[in-house]
């Protein structure tokens, strides 16, 4: 049987992401100060604090009666009601759409993971109507999901597939530096947005990075 990602690992992923956002909050806000309105780190921190509280109160997700789909839906609803700004509905849509595709089971394999990430990305694209190269979080998410799909299709195991996704997300994030923003607040600056890394692409990279970390460890208890 192929490797599986457990609910405990999904939980560990999001707790780790909450910690990473805490560490990087002022960096994200500084990136947003350059081409936006200096709130992205603050927004993400607020949302991830709420989610951390919920996750910690929940205990073992299996005992809470959640399957993967329900777990992702709970995450979506928490983020939608607590991040605010553009990022709230966008990350909310990512998890909401991922939840729709996710199995009603306690684990997912790498192919199912790629499917639910693809579905999450479609949710972000439908909600925000941004396309690749508009200088948004799409520029980190799209290559990450493509790399994950490709790795899954060639039979890669989870750590290898997630490493590929993480690398692609990082490249995509760095690629936003050279782009002129066409969506979101940075687009108001026109050509003056060139030369700055997109804050949302950066938080999206961190999301993939922490997933890669959490999904590659197995069985480490909280």
């Amino acid at each position, binding site marked *: 049987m192929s490797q599986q990602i457990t609910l405990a690992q999904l939980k560990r992923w999001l707790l780790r992401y909450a910690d990473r956002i805490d560490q990087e909050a002022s960096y994200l806000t500084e990136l947003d100060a350059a081409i936006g309105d*200096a*709130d992205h780190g603050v927004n993400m921190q607020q949302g991830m604090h709420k989610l951390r509280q919920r996750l910690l109160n929940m205990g073992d997700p299996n005992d809470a009666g959640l399957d993967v789909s329900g777990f992702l839906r709970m995450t979506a609803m928490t983020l939608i009601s607590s991040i*605010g700004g553009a990022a709230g*509905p966008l990350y909310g849509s990512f998890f909401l759409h991922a939840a729709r595709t996710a199995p009603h089971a306690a684990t997912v394999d790498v192919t199912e993971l790629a499917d639910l990430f693809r579905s999450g990305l479609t949710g972000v694209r439908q909600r925000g109507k941004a396309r690749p190269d508009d200088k948004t979080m799409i520029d980190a998410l799209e290559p990450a999901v493509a790399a994950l799909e490709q790795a899954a299709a060639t039979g890669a195991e989870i750590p290898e597939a997630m490493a590929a996704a993480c690398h692609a997300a990082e490249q995509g994030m760095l690629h936003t530096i050279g782009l002129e923003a066409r969506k979101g607040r940075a687009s*108001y*600056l026109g050509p*003056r947005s060139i030369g700055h890394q997109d804050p949302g692409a950066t938080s999206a990279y961190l999301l993939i990075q922490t997933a890669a970390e959490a999904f590659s460890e197995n069985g480490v208890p909280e």
Partner: protein
Amino acid sequence: MNTAHPALMQKKLINDPHDVVRQSLEGLALSHPHLLDVHYDPHFVRRIDGPIKGKVTLISGSGSGHEPLNTGYVGQGMLDAACPGAIFTSPTPDQYLSALDAVCGDQGALFITKNYAGGVLNIGMAMEMAQEQGYIVESVLVNDDVAIDDPKNRRGMGATVLVEKMAGAAAEEGRPLNAVTAIARQVAAQSRSMGVGLRSGASPLLGHPTFETRPDMIELGVGIHGERGRYEIPLTSADRITEMLLNPILDDLPLQPGDRVLAMVSGLGGTPLQELYIVFRHLHHLLEARGVTVERRLVGDYITSLDMAGCAITILRLTPELIRLWDASVRTPALWW
């Protein structure tokens, strides 16, 4: 990191930066107990006498830091509720839904939001959720900022105040949801704005100015979120700046001799009224010189960007109906007649 402007750094009348929004709302509630009431977690400000039967409900939302927008426009003749987000961050869908539950009458509700990615996305989600719960809701997007070329991408600025006032008056008259929505869209469509930033504001959470203005340079085409403008230009006289603000407005909203307008100059939070009058004086001259009548006017801090220095001009082409709706009585913390 940016550490200049020590004079600006956190010389603010605040306690813990994280408590700014909450404590400011608490003060608002204590300042206007006869007009409004504040609900916390999720945050919204509601008209004290709502929900009102037979009247369309108006709910507006935006980030905090634009005061008096929107919380200062809650009251008779304007908003039934306002949803303040975190500083410069659009409010979340559950804020809109909680406000709707608290103040919605029996005639449906109109959501008013400025055209920003976050505003549009959160309103979109709130509308879907409200409709699922059986509410009749409409929304209007305000996009009056001519600093952005593509109208679809234009930000909401001073026209927001005018939309809230006139749609609010129409709702108070007992007009149905489709008519109130049409008035709101008409006011938005007939308004144009352009802003100038002289000095960046400082967000309490950031702790320093959002950007540095070079000596003798100013930012033309700023929005209301402390961001840079479209262009950096050399500082010049108030009259010349007024022309640079008005010209792109007139390019986009052609006015004929005999047209009647409402002319608005709003400070961005860090400029004295004295200077706003100097801008308004020349704005008035320029419009009258073209044969345009300044029929109604509004000068002061009505939509701000924390403590950014600068101002924004808004011009609305009036019709007799809009003049009547503007003149209708209003009782809110920030507009009262």
